[in-house]
Each structure stands twice: as C-alpha cells, then as structure tokens.
C-alpha cells in the first residue's frame, strides 16, 4: 500500500480546484501574475517523454500548479481564466471540500472571511412577494414614460402635524419654533463602506457618482462614508452636502472631521451613528492589518494594526442614555442643522429600540437604518456571518407596524438594507421594502457588484477581508487597486441608478402611484402563506 498522509493539506480539502490543460498553455505566466491570492505557482514536473528522439527518457515540463495551503488557497475568483489567452486554466468548485473543518482543526482559530453569508438556505422572502395590485379601468395605471413621478423621501425627524407648533397669521401658517432638521433625498443611499474596507479608487468612484447624480442628473442620492473618515479636501468642499458621515464605536476618522469643522463650507447630508450591522450583529467592525494602507492610517489616525471597532459603544448601557448622549453630541456638533440617524442590525429586539426612539420626547433621532441578515461585510468571522442576524423584511415590517400602532408612522424614517438585489433586481427589492414601510433603502454590496466584484453568494471569492481583492475593490495593494478604473466604475454606478430610477417608475406606474408608495402593502401579494400571515399582506396562488 502506498503511504497516504491523511493529515496534510490536499487539493480535495480546498473549496476550489484548479483545472489546468498543459497542452493549451503557452507558459506566458499571466495567470500567476493575476492571482492575488498566490494560489497557483509555476512548477516543473518530471515526466517520461513521448517524443521520438527522447522516448522513454525523463524530461522536465513547465506547468502551473495549485498551492496547497490554508492561507494561499484558491477562492475561485476566476482571474486566471480571465487572463489566459488560450483557456488553459480555470477554477472548478469542489463540492466536497473540507476547508472549514481543516482550517479550524489546524489553526485553532475562528475562520474569517469577507463578502457575504454563504448559507442562504431559507430562500428569499422578497422573491416570493409580487406587486399584485394593478390599477386598471376607473383607477388608471400611470404611464412611466409620460407622467411625472416624485422619488423623494424625508430624511430627518418628522413631527406629527399637531406638534409642529404652527401659528396662523393673515391666513398663512408661520413657524414658531425651531424644528428638527429634515431633508428630502432619493430613496436609495450608497452605504456605508469605509475607506479601508474598500480601496480608495472604489470609494472615490462612489463619491464621484454621488456628486454626478446630484449635480448633473438631478437625483438627490446620498452616500454614507462608513466608519473610516473622509478625505479632508472633500470635507471642506461643497460636495460634502451629499455625504452622510458615519460614526461608529471605533470613532475612526473623527479626529480629522472635528479638526476640519471650522473650515467646512457646507453641512454634511447627515450623521449616521452605527450601533450594529446586519452581516455580523453584535460584532464590531474589523479591518485586518493587511488592509491598513498608509493613507488609511493617515485618514484614521492609526498605526498599521488590526482595527477593531468594539461591539458596543463604550460607556453606554441603555437605549435612552446611550442614544441621547450620542445623538445630542452629534446634533450639537452641527448646531442641530443636520439629521442624525442610527444604524442597527435587524434583530428580534429592533422594534423595542425603534419604539423607544419614537417615544423620545426630544425628537433627536432622524432616521432608523435597519440592516438585515444578508448584508455584505468587509470582514467577519464566518460563524457570525453565516449564523447570526435577522432577515430584513419581517423586521422592517414589524418596525413599521409598531409605528402604525402608535399612530407615528413616518416620524422616524425607516431605511432598510441587507442583501438587496441579491437575485438580480435591486429596484424590485427596494420597491417591495418601500411598500412594506421603508422610506428608502441602502446598499453597499450592490455597488461592489456594479464595480465588478467577482464574488457570489455561493462561496466564490469572498475574500474582501484579505486586502487581496482580485478586482481591486476591497484591496489596498497598489497593483490590485490599479485594476479598477475610477471613471468607469463611477459611470457604471450612475448608469445603474438611472436604470433603477426607470425601473422604480415602472413599478409605481401600474399601481397608480406618482409618489413613493411608502407603507402601501396593499399593493403587494405573496405566493407564500406564511409570509402572508407574517407581513400582513394578501396571499395569492
């Protein structure tokens, strides 16, 4: 019996196996150069020759081999196949891999990965919901091309009409008190990926697209910075009015923001206090040292080390106190002119938090961002990514109906995110969530896909945490980042939003809505009885 060494790493242990056809290979080396994971290498094989002159003799053949390593393993990103001129190499999924077992057994550590949860066993709720109430006959459909539509939603605290303290003078209403800041924005927010989590080229492309959509296309979209600061030049420019500044438990980047405040010429679009995120609820942000590039260090004011945002905001221990302290300081920072919102992971407890915020007599919270289970992330422990969290749809609905129960729907605008566009139609997902009660939606992962992310929900690539993103989107290595064309990505983002705008109108028109159908769950049906019961929408079969 040949000696088999079971306890070493084998090809079959790994999630992807390189298939290589030596007869097509011209040994150009492009595949090896393209592989950011160092998962393949050039190697020499000793063979018995078949040639007429050397038949039967040993000869050395240059080949491409897969590295058998728990660190440098193939993620299936497919860059090798993309660059190979002859189609000589590709990664093939290994359905019987043992990677997750072997990694933990060898490393005694929790397996970290990036990108997304790969355990979508339950099917998508949003795909089982259809827009089933079509306006016809006496209640006509609108014409998506011909009629005018308004796709804008309030962002900031909305007061009930009898709390506006309006006075009437000479037949006109006049304001008598200062009211909480409130802005009207597009119902899609680019959110919230930090400089560091994504490359500077990706972040810049998003910022360019945001400015272009606002200034040229008249679409008042907003972008959230993520917790990683914002370039000082942008802070001092007029374009900051399109940016929502994020503060999270690590407070990364806020030193620079505070220093720049005296020189700012415009208020930011808002402040988003991140308490939690859907992909890894209960866990803080995680930027591995490998991604802390020199400029990331500068913007954040940190050494090159793993950057962990604590799971909680330190020193805060109750909804009322924590929220009030943070919100008041953030509100005060911009003299109560800027909406301050909160982002939490969708959770069984989300409604309690939302109820508390709604009842807060000081009206300090201007938005509730609810992040669902299927959200993407730069980096997380696989166990968190795959096994913690709450789907967005039912929790968004719970929050909306809790507000309805109090007669306070719309007072703290709800924004929903987490896995939108996962099955191909971002606009449809956004529309359905709006009908279920969201004022708007936010998306990060979709933007990465638009930019050219090669990952998938079934385990392809998902290496955003490593800094070795083969698309240069989540990379911090100069050579990799250069793969991304800033202008093209910005153009693709703009185009995608323009397409989304058309598609949203194509859904508003048949239900006879010329303004956003926030809370119009009567427009929805579902083909699943359980979803019908849970979301209180009509069952159709």
């Amino acid at each position: 019996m040949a000696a088999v060494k079971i306890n070493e790493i084998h090809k079959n242990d790994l999630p992807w196996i390189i298939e290589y056809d030596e007869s097509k290979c011209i040994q150009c080396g492009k595949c090896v150069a393209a592989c950011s994971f160092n998962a393949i290498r050039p190697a020499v094989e000793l063979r018995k020759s078949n040639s007429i002159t050397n038949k039967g003799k040993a000869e050395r053949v240059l080949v491409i081999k897969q590295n058998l390593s728990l660190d440098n393993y193939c993620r299936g990103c497919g860059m090798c196949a993309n660059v190979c001129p002859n189609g000589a190499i590709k990664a093939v999924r290994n359905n019987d891999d043992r990677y997750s077992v072997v990694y933990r057994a060898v490393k005694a550590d929790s397996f970290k990965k990036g990108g997304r949860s790969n355990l979508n066993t339950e099917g998508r709720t949003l795909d089982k919901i259809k827009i089933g109430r079509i306006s016809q006959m006496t209640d006509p459909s609108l014409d998506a091309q011909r009629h005018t539509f308004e796709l804008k939603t309030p962002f900031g605290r909305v007061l009930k009409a009898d709390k506006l303290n309006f006075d009437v003078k000479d037949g006109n209403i006049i304001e008598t008190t200062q009211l909480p800041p409130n802005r009207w924005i597009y119902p899609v927010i680019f959110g919230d990926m930090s400089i560091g989590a994504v490359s500077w080229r990706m972040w810049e492309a998003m910022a360019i697209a945001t400015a272009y959509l606002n200034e040229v296309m008249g679409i008042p979209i907003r972008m959230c910075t993520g917790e990683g600061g914002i370039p000082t030049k942008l802070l001092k420019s007029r374009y900051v009015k399109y940016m929502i500044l994020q503060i999270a438990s690590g407070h990364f980047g806020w030193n620079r923001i505070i220093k720049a405040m005296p020189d700012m010429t415009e208020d930011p679009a808002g402040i988003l206090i991140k308490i939690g995120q859907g992909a890894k609820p209960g866990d803080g942000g995680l930027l591995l040292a490998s991604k802390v590039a020199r400029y990331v260090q500068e913007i954040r004011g940190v050494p090159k080390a793993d950057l962990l945002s604590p799971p909680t905001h330190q020193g805060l221990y109750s909804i009322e106190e924590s929220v009030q302290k943070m919100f008041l300081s953030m509100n005060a920072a911009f003299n109560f002119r800027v909406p301050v919102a909160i982002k939490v992971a969708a959770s069984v407890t989300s409604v309690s938090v939302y109820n508390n915020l709604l009842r807060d007599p000081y009206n300090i919270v201007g938005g509730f961002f609810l992040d669902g289970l299927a959200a993407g992330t730069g980096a997380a422990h696989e166990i968190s990514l795959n096994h913690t969290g709450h789907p967005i749809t039912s929790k968004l609905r719970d929050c909306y109906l809790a507000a309805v129960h109090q007669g306070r729907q719309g007072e703290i605008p709800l924004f929903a995110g987490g896995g939108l566009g996962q099955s191909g139609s971002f606009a449809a997902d956004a529309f359905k969530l709006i009908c279920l009660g969201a004022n708007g939606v936010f998306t990060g992962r979709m933007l990465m896909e638009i930019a050219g992310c090669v990952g998938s929900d079934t385990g392809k690539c998902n290496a955003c945490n490593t800094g070795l993103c083969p698309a240069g989107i989540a990379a911090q290595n100069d050579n990799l980042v250069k793969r991304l064309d800033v202008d093209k990505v910005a153009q693709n983002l703009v185009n995608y939003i323009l397409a989304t705008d058309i598609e949203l109108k194509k859904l508003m028109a048949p239900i006879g809505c010329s303004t956003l159908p926030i809370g119009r769950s009567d427009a929805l049906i579902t083909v699943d009885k359980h979803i019908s019961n849970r979301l209180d929408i009509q069952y159709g079969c």
Partner: protein
Amino acid sequence: MCRIGAIKSKRKLHPSIALKLMRSQQEGHDDSGFAFVMQDMGGLFENYKDLPLLSMAAAVEGTRLAEDILRETGFSRVMQWSPDINNKKGLKIEAMPNYMFEALQYPKSYKHATKEEKEELLIDTAIRLRKTLEETNSGFIYSFWPDTLTLKEIGSPRDIGTYFNLWEGNKDLTASIITAQCRQNTNYDIVRYAAHPFFLEGYTGLVNGENTFYEKNREYQESLYKGYIGFESDSQCILYTLHYINKILKWPLKYFKHTVTPLSYDEIIQREDSEILLRIKASLANLEINGPNTFLAVTPDKELLCVCDSKKLRPVVIGKDDDTVIMTSEVAGINDLMPDRDITKDIYPNEHETVVVKDDLTIERWQQ
C-alpha cells in the same frame, strides 16, 4: 364611474333638484344607490337650526335602541319628520322599515355648555348610536348634527326618488346646500355607509375617484381622531383629512390641497413658504391621496370646496347663475338646471386649484 354634484343657492331648494342634476349624468349610475346631504335647512327644519338633527334608517329594534340611548343621554325630541313613502310595486329599492329625522334638545346639563362641549357630546353620541346599531344589525345613523339632514338608500336612484316622493318639489324639505351622488361606492360591499356624501361634524365630502393611498390614509387616520371610523370607502379618508386640517389643526382651508396633493419638492423649494410646505409634506405624508380624484366638500362655514388630484384625472365643472352655484361631474347636469347661464363663465378647475364658493356665492380660485 361615479358622478357627483353639489348645489349651493341663495334660495332654499328641494332635493328633487339633486335628482334632476344627476339624471342626465346617469351613464354613471348602476342602480346601486342614491344619497344626499342637506345643510342650511329651510322648510320644516328652518326653526330648529341650532338643535342637533338626527338622520337614521333603522329596523324597529334599532329605532327603540336609538331612542333609549338618546333618552339616557338626556336628549329630548323637539320635532320629528318622516318622508311620505310611495311603496308601489316594482321599485328597485332595498328600503329600511323606518326613516327618522328628528330635531333634539340638548340635555339640561348642557344649558350653559360651550359650543365645543356640545360638539363633543354629539360626536360621542353618534359613535355610540352607530356602534349599538351595528352590533345589533338594526340600523344606520347617517348624521347627528345641527342643520344637517342625510338620506342614503340602496337601489335605483330613479326608484329611490319615487319611493320617497322626491321627484316633486315641496316647501317642507328644503335647504340651501345639497350634495348628492347617484350610486354606491361599488369597490367594496354595497352597504349604506359606503355611499357618498360622507358627513362629519359639519363637513360633507363626496368623491369621484379612486384613492390609491387608501391603506396609508386609513392606517394613519384610525388613531388620529375618534370620529374617523367606518372606512367603508376610500373616499371617506379625504373628508377626514379635510376635517383634520381645518377643524383639528385649525389650519386655513388652502392647506388642505397642500396636504392631499402636495407640490413636488422641486416646485416647493422655489417658493417663499417652502419651509412650511415641506414640513406639511413630511408630517402629513400619510394623508396624501394618489390616483384619480375629484373631491367636493361643504364646510361648517357653508362654503363649497372643489379640489382635484395632482394629475387632474377626473372631470368636474362649476356653473353659476345669479342665485345658485353648481359643482358637478358633467356639464350636462348644469345645462339641465341652468340652461340660461353664461357658459363662458363655467369653471373647469385644474390640478393645482382649489375652488371655493363663499357663503355669499362669490367664487374664489386659489392656485396651489
């Protein structure tokens, strides 16, 4: 499609005029019903203007239950009137056993009560009556308010007119304001409460249209005020919004249009009052209406009101002669009643317009 009509006159008019107004618009009829509300009463009710007038249709049991509640609350009957019934064979009508219209004196304890306290008593009593009649399935209460009479019935408008002897005018049953519609709201069950015009505390509303924001409106209104009940029709919501803006919030009428069909953000920011309008747009977003609608209303100040949806998807025309103004869906109706008016002065309101007929019949047109 529904046809609606509102008439305001310096004279006291009999409801026959409403039937005649709607007759030439009968393409919109479907034999589902006829209803009208009379305000600023004349005739038999002329001398009881300050007293609450109960309009109800009930079975014997319902009549007794209502009488009990009224007596128990302290109301005492001052005057009662029942329509002459022509119960000839073959009429298409689902008549109720009793139709009661009675003026009542307030309870003695309300002798020195304020107007607000009296109004509170009326709405509370009306809600209680309705609840009791609903629980026992024994009748319908349409209005309980001074100087207001309501009749609603299911069937052919022509036959309902015959049944109540409404085709021939007389001086007993008259009012200076009459609003009417010749069909039920057929989107939902045919129930008497779903018939326009709707009435709440001096405000009357009737709609030709579909309010696609019905669910949003209803979910919000259910907790806004105790009188916002029923919701048998998506159009009731629009009346409740008028009531909320004008009576509860005490805002001038012009802000009603800014609430139900707010201007777009881009239009608002061009205006001097943009701060106010944006606040209204955000705070009352749940009271916006969408879909095609023409809304006619009567206010407690005896003014008529007309607004349309933001895309002007439903018809309405306003005609006037020396002593009467008519708002209705089709000009044919006005032509029948006012053939000699100056038609060049007819008003076809636009999507941004609020048309108000003041008590002295002057017409104001406000652009949003």
